[in-house]
């Protein structure tokens, strides 16, 4: 007789039965949310609570944290983002014990305290894509708590502009005998479009208010400094132009915001329109509006959305991914993959870089996690299709190898000022990440980008091209050569730096024909949030905190 392995399926049936008492069809009233969770979730379960980079299933987070820990305890939380206070309350209250996650920016101090204090058993800190991958192998959730804009009576969901992680989470859970519970702003007769099929969804709770979204990708042009503009000019003229970078991803920050705002002005002056920066893996950055309006951008795929950008996106469906209803469709999993395999360059900022080019955003008392940067900022060795920038970088890295066997390299660029907030140097001998690893007894120090993936470093002092460095010694001096007046910079060997400069492994602004005094705010195509609103034809609606009118 054949054995049928369907234990998990029958277990799901029992969970659903336990939850049915609170439901009419799939619909559960808001006031029964905690009771539903207590009925459906078992102690020790793996639970995915949708704390995405931006979107938060806030009602479900509050309801989860309100459970009786005598009834449900020792949960294993698997989630992208630890963002809301309730995400950590569940650990304080003994409802959860173990955590695997990717990003904890807003809770970086509190999570550090709980980790040091032993209140959280850490599985590992991942990148987003890694976590999604593990949902399909060894971290599949038994219960997924997700957020959507609206549902219809069949449980079909519209996740809209902030679709983000939901498809990856829901598919893994639904097809591996898990239970999917969704909070929605409202239940309607007809959805604008179907993002998640009702077959995947077991319970729907109408919260009656919009789920919380973090505005993360809005940078006020008024705050961009002359130095940041200088680094942007260097990047455009010293990297975008010579490599011909058409497909790219920008990490969030003021340096990259400056690059975006310089394309229609400085980029135009250099004759680069149509040659660079046309295809993007990027969230809807408001600072890219002038470039879009000036005809630089063919297409953008987004990880998530951005508060205030929706009306603009609707009116620019030639550029953004939108559904038949007109609203944005984002997808973090696919955008991460796009950033890895379909982009020729990543450029972003960091807090610390060491002498080998390893970089980290970790400090000794704050644990922010990785988010998606390590994926964007790494060489994708599985890539096979060629492009000019990729092949050129590969040639610079390994000139001796015969061309047909010499694969290319993704351009991975770190950009920033030599001194950061409170005059803390960006360049250090030893990353704070090492101290953190010791404190938390981690196998690996939390490094964001590894030196052997980083190809260029751009500061106000110039550009270091690590591809042209032949050994660790040269790499160290290329780093020192752009480290300005930091201790690392002042420790340079002048002769070594000069040799590297002759070879082009270090280039100063004057080598590129750039006078630092030319880095003027007047070069910015938009100098205020209001300017961005004007560029957008009044379609962009910035969040209140950015207004001065």
């Amino acid at each position, binding site marked *: 007789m054949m054995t049928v392995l369907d234990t998990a399926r029958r277990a799901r049936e029992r969970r659903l039965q336990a939850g049915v008492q609170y439901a009419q069809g799939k619909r559960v009233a808001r006031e029964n949310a905690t009771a539903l969770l207590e009925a459906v979730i078992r102690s020790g379960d793996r639970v995915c609570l949708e704390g995405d980079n931006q979107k938060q299933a806030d009602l479900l987070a509050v309801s989860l944290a309100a459970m009786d820990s005598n009834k449900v305890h020792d949960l294993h939380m698997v989630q992208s983002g630890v963002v809301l206070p309730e995400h950590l309350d569940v650990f304080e209250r003994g409802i959860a014990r173990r955590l695997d996650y990717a990003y904890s920016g807003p809770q970086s101090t509190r999570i550090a305290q709980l980790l040091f204090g032993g209140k959280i058993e850490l599985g590992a800190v991942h990148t987003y894509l890694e976590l999604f991958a593990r949902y399909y192998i060894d971290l599949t959730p038994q219960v997924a708590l997700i957020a959507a804009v609206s549902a219809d009576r069949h449980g079909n969901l519209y996740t809209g502009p902030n679709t983000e992680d939901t498809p990856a989470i829901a598919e893994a859970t639904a097809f591996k005998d898990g239970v999917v519970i969704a909070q929605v702003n409202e239940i309607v007769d007809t959805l604008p479009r179907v993002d998640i099929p009702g077959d995947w969804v077991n319970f729907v709770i109408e919260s009656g208010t919009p789920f919380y979204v973090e505005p993360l990708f809005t940078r006020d042009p008024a705050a961009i400094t002359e130095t940041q503009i200088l680094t942007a000019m260097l990047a455009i003229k010293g990297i975008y132009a010579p490599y011909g970078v058409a497909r790219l991803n920008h990490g969030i920050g003021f340096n990259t915001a400056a690059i975006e705002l310089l394309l229609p002005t400085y980029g135009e002056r250099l004759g680069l329109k149509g040659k660079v920066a046309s295809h993007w893996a990027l969230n809807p950055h408001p600072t890219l509006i002038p470039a879009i309006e000036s005809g630089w951008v063919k297409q953008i795929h987004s990880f998530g959305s951005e508060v205030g950008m929706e009306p603009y996106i609707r009116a620019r469906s030639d550029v953004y991914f939108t559904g038949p209803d007109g609203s944005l469709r984002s997808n973090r999993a696919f955008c991460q993959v796009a950033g890895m395999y379909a982009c020729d360059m990543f450029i972003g900022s960091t807090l610390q870089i060491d002498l080998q080019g390893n970089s980290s955003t970790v400090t000794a008392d704050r644990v922010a996690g990785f988010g998606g940067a390590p994926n964007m900022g790494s060489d994708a060795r599985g890539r096979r299709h060629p492009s000019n920038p990729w092949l050129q970088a590969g040639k610079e890295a390994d000139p001796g190898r015969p061309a047909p066997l010499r694969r290319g390299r993704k351009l991975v660029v770190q950009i920033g000022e030599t001194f950061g907030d409170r005059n803390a140097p960006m360049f250090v001998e030893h990353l704070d990440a090492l101290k953190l690893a010791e404190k938390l007894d981690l196998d690996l120090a939390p490094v964001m980008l590894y030196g052997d993936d980083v190809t260029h470093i751009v500061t106000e002092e110039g550009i270091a091209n690590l591809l042209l460095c032949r050994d660790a010694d040269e790499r160290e001096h290329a780093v020192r050569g752009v480290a300005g007046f930091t201790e690392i910079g002042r420790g340079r060997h002048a002769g070594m730096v000069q040799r590297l400069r002759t070879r082009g492994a270090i280039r100063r602004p004057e080598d590129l024909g750039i006078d630092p005094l030319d880095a003027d705010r007047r070069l910015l195509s938009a100098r205020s949030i*209001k300017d961005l609103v004007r560029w957008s034809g009044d379609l962009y609606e910035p969040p*209140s905190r950015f*207004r001065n*009118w």
Partner: protein
Amino acid sequence: MSTAGSWYEATARQRLLKLLDEGTFEEFIGPEQRETSPHLSLFDLPEQFDDGMIVGHGRLEGTRVLIAAQEGRFMGGAFGEIHGAKLTGLLRASREISSMPVLILFDSGGVRLQEANAGETAISEIMRALVDARLAGVPVVGLIGGRAGCYGGGGLIAGCCSALAVSEQGRISVSGPEVIETNRGVEEFDSKDRALVWRTMGGKHRRLIGGAEILADDTMASFREAATHLIKRAPPLDAVTLEAEQSRLEKRLERFGRCEDARDIWVSLGVADARSLPALAYDDFVVLANRLENAPYDAR
């Protein structure tokens, strides 16, 4: 996009130099005199050579003017002993000279806490000197459009001016948003709601409610045009003017005193779409404001 200089973005010096005819500005007590605050070093705070107040004279469209400009980014543009004394001295001099209008480029959060007594004294000395100058027939025109706005003592001084031009980014008030929230609660006034702050204290509202004569665009050119216009149209400071002002304010309080929000006032004034007023482009707003005007605000 416009590359014409933004008033909001500019430093006090840049505003002053762009406002006046090129090459005509001469500074009194310039930075090389190093007349700095005698108090800030006690608090380990850095000084500025001009103590954040630039005074001098120059020409505006050929007309000789006296001019003062506050640096809103230094100590929030707040009044201190030297800062205040420079403006007092300028206004007293204007009464003696009596033939030159005075332009005051406000950008101030009020009085410096570190120099509170001297600062408050300066405010009242300035107000007296300003009134004396106006009594002698000197037009005193205020221009407001910087980051710090025109608050506290600055707001009081502005209220004594012959006329005011303000930009959309500019704000005029006495108590600041945080102070109102602390004293009255967040339900009364949420200081983090910037749209509310600008609706209540910002340039467009001030223009509509009669707190300023002209709404200028956020450009040097627009402020220059406004200043040129206003120095020629300053009403005399006499009993007739004051009585008219009293009457205007009484009627305004009677008409709008029960309104909960600036939008209610705009609706009452006849604005068709109050919600979209803050977003209205400059030229369109000016047309609208001129159309709504019921009585001239010649009452300072």
